[in-house]
């Protein structure tokens, strides 16, 4: 017995030594200097996100993604929340310029308000990425939807439905958000680019809802009473268009009125597609935007170029969601992307 024990332990020792020597002899690969420098340069950088406001799917989604990367590459990521107030936003931006972080991710309330300040920021050497809503000044990078494209798609869909001889009529209503916001300015352009080729389509109402569903609701209610035979409606944003939709539902015209809206592809939006409140939902896929945003952030932080030296932009792909293709894959919830 004892002997056996000895034997076993001896053998084990032998094996151990053999393997040890073997590993010593093995090739241990090369250190990748770029990886280390990548991590080193990013470490300790400061990125600040200035949204329209926190508390709705888009901003929360982007923030989640950006924070994730910040934690991964441990650079500092902060949020300044002006809570829908352009004034507070400008104040925040102004103090940011004083603070001079490495990079600002700006979400413009309209194409003008931040324009000058963003220019100032870049002049001070702060790199600026604009997300989804651009401003007059083009900055180091813009990531987000191509509103003109969304406009076109939406318009085409509506024309498809309410064009010559189709639908209850040719009447179409447009609910804009904030007239000076990029989403409106460019999307309207896109919409009309299409509609102009279809003179039969009659835009019976085009009113600003300030992203406010209640306002959207009452407007749509009004419109529906003015034009009971309304055929199509284009909304600028799913959050506000829940109001539009419910107005249509209440009027019992769910089937008659074809409602197109666009949004970040949040689960809530998808639910509304499922229960038939939205007929077409053009999603600019917030998680995707978030990832691209992250890539841009990393790129800019790494690049040697001065702020505002060369300006990039990327329009992310859009997905059209309808009752048929609505599913988990192209819808997301905050918890998933955290």
């Amino acid at each position, binding site marked *: 017995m004892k002997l056996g024990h000895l034997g076993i332990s001896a053998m084990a020792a032998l094996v151990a030594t053999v393997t040890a020597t073997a590993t010593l002899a093995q090739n241990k690969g090369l250190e990748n200097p770029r990886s280390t420098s990548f991590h080193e340069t990013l470490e300790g950088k400061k990125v600040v996100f200035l949204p329209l406001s926190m508390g709705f799917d888009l901003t929360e989604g982007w923030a989640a993604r950006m924070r994730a990367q910040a934690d991964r590459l441990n650079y500092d990521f902060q949020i300044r929340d002006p809570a*829908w107030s352009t004034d*507070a936003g400008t104040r925040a931006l102004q103090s940011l310029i004083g603070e001079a972080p490495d990079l600002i991710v700006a979400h413009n309330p309209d194409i003008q*308000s931040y324009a000058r300040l963003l220019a100032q920021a870049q002049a001070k050497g702060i790199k600026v990425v604009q997300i989804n809503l651009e401003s007059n000044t083009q900055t180091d990078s813009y990531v987000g939807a191509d509103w003109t494209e969304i406009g076109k798609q939406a318009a085409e869909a509506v024309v498809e439905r309410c064009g010559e001889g189709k639908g209850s009529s040719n009447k179409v209503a447009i609910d804009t958000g904030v007239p000076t916001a990029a989403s409106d300015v460019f999307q309207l352009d896109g919409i009309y680019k299409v509609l102009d080729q279809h003179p039969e389509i009659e835009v019976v109402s085009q009113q600003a809802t300030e992203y406010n569903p209640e306002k959207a609701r009452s407007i749509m209610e009004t419109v529906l009473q003015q034009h009971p035979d309304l055929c199509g409606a284009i909304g600028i944003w799913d959050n506000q268009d829940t109001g539009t939709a419910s107005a249509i539902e209440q009027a019992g015209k769910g089937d008659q009125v074809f409602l197109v809206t666009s949004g970040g592809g949040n689960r809530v939006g998808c639910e509304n597609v499922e229960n038939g409140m939205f007929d077409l939902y053009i999603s600019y896929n917030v998680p995707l935007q978030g990832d691209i945003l992250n890539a841009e952030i990393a790129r800019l932080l790494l690049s040697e170029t001065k702020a505002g030296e060369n300006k990039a932009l990327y329009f992310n792909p859009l997905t059209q969601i309808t009752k048929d293709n609505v599913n988990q894959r192209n819808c997301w919830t905050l918890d998933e992307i955290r």
Partner: protein
Amino acid sequence: MAAKDELLALRYRLIPDRLLGELLTKSWIDNVIPALALAVTVIIMTILIPGYLSAGNMADLGRQVSEMGLIALAMTVVILSGGIDLSVGSMFALCVLTALTCMNVAGLPIGVSLAATLAAGLLCGLLNGVLIGYLRLRAFITTLVTLVIFRALYDIIFPRLASAIVGSFPTSALWDLIGFGDFFGVPVSFLIFAVIAIVLHIGLSRLRPGWRLRAVGGARRSAYNAGINVKFTVCMAYVVSGLLTATAAFLFSARLGSTGADTGVGLEITVLTAVVLGGVSLGGGRGSVGNAIIGTVLVLILSNSLIRLSMPGSVNQLILGLVLVAAVLFDRKWIKNRSKILSKVYVSPTYLPLRDRPDPGDDDYLAVNDKLGGVELIGLGAVEGPEDVILDRDGNLYTGTRHGNIVRFFGPDFKRHEVFARIGGHPLGLAFSPDGDLLTCVGGMGVYRVTPQGVVEKVTDETNRSLLSIIDDSRLRLPDDLDIAPDGRVFFSEATIRYDMSEWAVDALEGRGNGRLICYNPHTGTTRTVLRNLIFPNGITMCRDGQSLLFAETWACRISRYWFDGPSKGRVEIFMDNLPGYPDNINRGSNGAYWVALLGMRTKTFDLAMRKPAFRRRMAKRIASDEWMFPNINRGCVLQVSEAGELMDSYWDKAGENHPSITSTCEHRGWLYLGGVSNNRIGRVRIENSVPDWTIHQDYWGER
């Protein structure tokens, strides 16, 4: 025991309890709390946020303050008029729109644009003004409606111009200067704001319109009855508000060169918060430019810093809400209770040890007698409160009454009397100048001169203000007695700087050196305080050496001698100490003696109380003033004192019936005339061993 008293004395010498009460009497105390709040916030933020006080940051703050501050001023003006203006936000938006349309769209010169913007503000303000001022609509609901209307206008016009506005940049150097420029780091917009603020402050606090505004806000009805044109004033308040808002809008547009759909939304609430936080109280009348600015800065700093600390916007809202509640709560309670607290803490007694009272029994001079028992009464019921009495060369008797007159009784029998002069305040000390003018200390007024023809003229009513006194001690509150030096200088005592004539007795409870000795120099016309911190300095009389004077410190029960001239100029030494009562006026008498009137007698219990300040403070706080323990001033006594300060004789009124309190004496041709501040009579008694034809006049100024 002794050690304990030492400690007590020390504690009351070192800790100035009285300051608290004196602070509360100041009107500016209202602004102190918001200011403190501001300071605290700044400190906290500087700790929390690195580089918070950086020049750049301050410049930004300056820009923002200048915009919001102007609107806060607008709100303040309206609130001062007793109204409220909820429409500032929408007004602001409209004005911004005007400015931008002029600059960006129409491309007008900046001057024209400014004019247009102001015009827009003026119109909006005028609408409010006419509705509320002239049609007398309710401010709240009216401005609420105009808020909706202006906002609707904005919503209608804005989308039509939006793209045009954002489409183009105006090219105007001045425009950019206003927007971004600065002088030595101070933003231009802030300079503009500062100028406006200062002008407004002067207008509100120093000029008639401002006073009218406050009057209307404070008590509309009274203002109306006082003949102020209420309608016009109120209307103007709103017009001004409109103009200020327009100015703010102009600065705003210059800074951002753009406007959003939400411009000015909820601004009225932010501004209201700021203003109330600053200490402008609703219901009108109370508030200042300073308040508005403090509030604005506070709110801005708070909200900015919260964003800066990357708090969610909701937390921001939460905290601002809480702050507003706290502010209003405090404002209410403060207004309600300030006077209560004041009345509780103002009286602040201090430690005043007195040696054991000499017992009249063992001093035959002091022994209680009834020499005043048979006092002849003059003008019984005809005079009230003859504090001092004096006779002129012709033997006519003069005295002051609490009705504010100087009454003259015609000698030798003093049956007839007339009102010699009407002063207006209660004349206390009296003295004749060599040329026959009658000088008098008037309670609450100052020192006045009455010519033999009865013409009243002011001698002086103020002295140099001392630096470290919270109370404004440049005014004379309670001048008590005076005397005239050979060279014509007038030395007079002010009994206390903390209490008025009506409540002079409360000073007894304090027993602190609240009084002072003041000198008026007719040659230079200046008045200067010569001795401070005297314990109720009362009577004054010139010594015969022409270089010194005697003054009595009532609650300290002592008489001191002060040299105002000669070799030992400035020296003060005790002349008589530990008197049996409370000395009032001192006057010269025949045979080189002095008469000292004791307005009341010391009691062992009160002496004990004087050694127990805490006891007295509690007494003052807890029981009605009528019930306060008090020296026995129902019993008067007169002492005759030699040049060297020894006691020569004493005159008592045993029963205290005939002549209760004695505050002054005057010897004249063998008679001693007695005055008493709480009497309705003048007393007169024969003096044994006096010089029959002695009068003060010859004693002072020699024979004519």
